[in-house]
């Protein structure tokens, strides 16, 4: 062991914005690859669309606002917003879905509030809500896991469906989404919502072909992959443990209690934690350093609040998944949470 004498600064961790954003993006890679494995090449094309529109919009806004262009463009924050939105929208959504969403996210949610660090709302989630409210059909047209699909899609077919709405053989998106029995396949949470409204019980719904022992086919592994990416971020200390733990803990606890009280009242805890955007959001969306709470106690409250909101919207609301709405609602409470959870400065205040 050598004791080198070095002058300050002694910490030389590279924690510039650009590096942090790049690490978050690389942590998404396992999730993206798993998504591509189960749901086809669409996600790559959506990534290309969203990320290029994000860069272009950021450039145009900065130019218009007379802000330093190079510095903001190279901090990778716009790219990350594009990436987060691209993995949230259905892989075969028409190209303009991603384009409109990213344009809205960067121009209105981020730049209109003053650029990076100034936005109240999470840009990717605000854009997701805009798209979901505006284009409910396209935004819920998820494909079933590829093992359930009747028609195989190659890269060219995927591209052609995104650009024109039809594959090269002329199949429409609706036909692609149908299973062998001709019934349209939905996402696990979507199926639960529709079937419960139609009067089925939870257990009947969970025996549909899109489920595998009560958890969504494909979705389980996608969630797992995002979990791996999230753990990597935790290890790298890019994000703190408070938000993911309190979010997942609250959601899991609520489903566990509900199921203990009424066995047919909700899906299993595992179903809730591995479907929809739960895992992805816990590590990649909620932990957005700009729009999330910034005190340690505040982070716990913030995560728990979103967990609670997600649970009640999934359980009683009209939309199948609720992460985006819950995040936006919680974003609004962040100034209040931060205000009341300010840690006391040592030596000041009472005890």
């Amino acid at each position, binding site marked *: 062991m050598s004791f080198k004498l070095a002058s300050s600064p002694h910490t030389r961790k590279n924690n510039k914005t650009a590096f942090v954003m790049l690490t978050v993006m690389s942590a998404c890679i396992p999730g993206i690859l798993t998504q591509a494995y189960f749901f086809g090449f669409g996600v790559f094309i959506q990534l290309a669309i969203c990320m290029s529109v994000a860069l272009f919009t950021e450039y145009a806004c900065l130019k218009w606002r007379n802000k330093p262009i190079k510095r903001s463009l190279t901090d990778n924050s716009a790219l990350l917003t594009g990436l987060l939105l691209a993995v949230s929208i259905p892989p075969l959504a028409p190209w303009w879905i991603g384009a409109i969403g990213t344009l809205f996210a960067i121009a209105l949610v981020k730049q209109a509030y003053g650029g990076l660090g100034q936005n109240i709302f999470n840009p990717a989630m605000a854009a997701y809500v*805009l798209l979901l*409210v505006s284009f409910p059909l396209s935004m819920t047209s998820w494909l079933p896991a590829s093992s359930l699909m009747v028609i195989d899609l190659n890269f060219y077919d995927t591209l052609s469906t995104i650009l024109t709405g039809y594959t090269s053989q002329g199949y429409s998106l609706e036909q692609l989404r149908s299973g062998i029995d001709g019934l349209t396949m939905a996402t696990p949470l979507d199926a639960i919502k529709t079937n419960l409204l139609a009067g089925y019980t939870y257990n009947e719904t969970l025996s549909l072909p899109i489920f595998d022992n009560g958890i969504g086919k494909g979705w389980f592994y996608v969630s797992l992959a995002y979990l791996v990416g999230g753990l990597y971020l935790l290890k790298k200390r890019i994000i703190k443990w408070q938000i993911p733990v309190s979010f997942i803990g609250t959601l899991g606890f609520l489903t566990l209690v509900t199921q203990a009280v009424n066995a047919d009242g909700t899906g299993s805890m595992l179903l809730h934690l591995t479907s929809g955007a739960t895992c992805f959001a816990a590590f990649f969306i909620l932990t957005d350093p700009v729009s999330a709470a910034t005190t340690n106690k505040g982070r716990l409250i913030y995560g728990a609040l979103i967990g609670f909101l997600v649970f009640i919207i999934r359980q009683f609301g009209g939309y199948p998944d609720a992460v985006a709405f819950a995040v936006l609602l919680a974003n609004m409470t962040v100034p209040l949470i931060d205000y009341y959870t300010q840690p006391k400065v040592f030596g000041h205040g009472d005890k």
Partner: protein
Amino acid sequence: MSPLQEISWQGLWKNNPALVQMLGLCPLLAVSNTTINGLGLGLATLFVLLGSNITVSLVRNWVPNEIRIPVFVMIIAGLVTVIQLLMNAYTYALYQTLGIFIPLIVTNCAIIGRAEAFASKNNVKLAAWDGLMMGLGFLLILVALGIVREVLGNGTLFSGAHLLFGSMATHWQITLFETNETFLIAILPPGAFIALGLLIAVKNKFDKRIEALVVGEKKAKTTERARVTADNIT
């Protein structure tokens, strides 16, 4: 500027009820989802505002100060009832589309605001002109919002014109583009908030630019001297 010009400038731009005073936003945001709805409600508000300003100005010397607000509200409510019955009689379909927002004109703060702030202190001529200009300012913003939201949301213009103008207007609808999936948010209330926010931003931008031009001209004419006197210490 003559008083009449000043009033017009205030009503249409500088003190616009929708963009600057931000009064009466509830009907403004709720019914501006098509141009015709916006125009219909804008006209109704314009007539009520004109009538209430004239009436309030006429009775201003007889109304005791303590009970002026109830009196103004009674006058406005009476006029709104007249408009409501007229619309019920002549533009029944539009009356049904606008629904609760016609009676709600009574609670439109822009109207009681003008009665209190202007009509109760000025003569009939000025009050009438003020009502007309404020009403026009409100109407223009309603129509502008309606156009933006209808074009973005439906790709059409003047759809449902026959509701307001009768059967001769059945073919006035202009279809700018056809789409299977409409941009729903533009028609839903969040779209109204976003569009109004953008309109206000555009107006502020204009004002800044005009101000910069005026200041620039002044600067060119006079050399500026930095002097600290009692006048500019605040």
